[in-house]
């Protein structure tokens, strides 16, 4: 199973808060050229305010990090948040 798939499985097992609409998970190379995994957490539009709640975001990132580690993922997992439907 590739690393991104392992992270995806770990997050399914972990369970996500109700303010998460969906996640997009995939492999990436970070800016130093190291293999990593990117997790994009898409926040429900009616829970948009959560992107300003550093404690809530940090708590989820730590859970993701711990779940990935437990699943044997030994590359960095980068977690980014975005709000559903929000245009760039």
């Amino acid at each position, binding site marked *: 199973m590739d690393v991104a798939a392992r992270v995806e499985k770990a997050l399914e097992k972990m369970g996500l808060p109700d303010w998460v609409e969906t996640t997009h998970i995939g492999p990436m190379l970070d*800016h130093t050229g190291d293999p990593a995994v990117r997790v994009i957490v898409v926040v429900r539009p009616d829970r948009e305010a959560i992107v300003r709640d550093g404690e809530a975001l940090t708590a989820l990132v730590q859970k993701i990090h711990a779940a990935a580690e437990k699943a044997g993922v030994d590359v960095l997992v980068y977690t980014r948040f975005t709000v559903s439907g929000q245009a760039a």
Partner: protein
Amino acid sequence: MALHDDLLAQAARLARTDKNRSKQANLRRAASAAYYALFHLLIDQGSRFLIAGPQREALRHQVARSFDHGQVKRAAQAFATVGANASPWRAVLGAPPSQPLTSVALAFIELQEARHEADYDLARAFTRGEVEALLARAKAGFSHWHAVAGTAEADAFLVALLLKGRT
């Protein structure tokens, strides 16, 4: 206010300055400023840890110049991982890093990556929500750092920021 506090405030202003659709220039600079805010907080704390005293500012500034973004990231990686054999620093710490310290380390790693994308990756666009989240994580990083500052694990982290190739 210290530079790192001003950078955090600047990041917030830039992220919110556009009333309707946010300009990429403002969002990108906000992401970059959020990273530099946390970076400068850590190097300020690191240089103060090494060079204490009110009359030694010039020497402290010189020490601050020695911090390297890559080394700070490597140190953050060593402290962000809580696994049993994660890091040589485990022998120094005697226990896994606390949650607040881990969160500072994780925030730093994420913000550094975001800063590179903001400054150099023109192929992707930032959204306001994404940048608000980066800003919130930088603020939380400040708060979590202040929760552990002065502890043995925080001191070990500050030393790790400077020790090239030994983490």
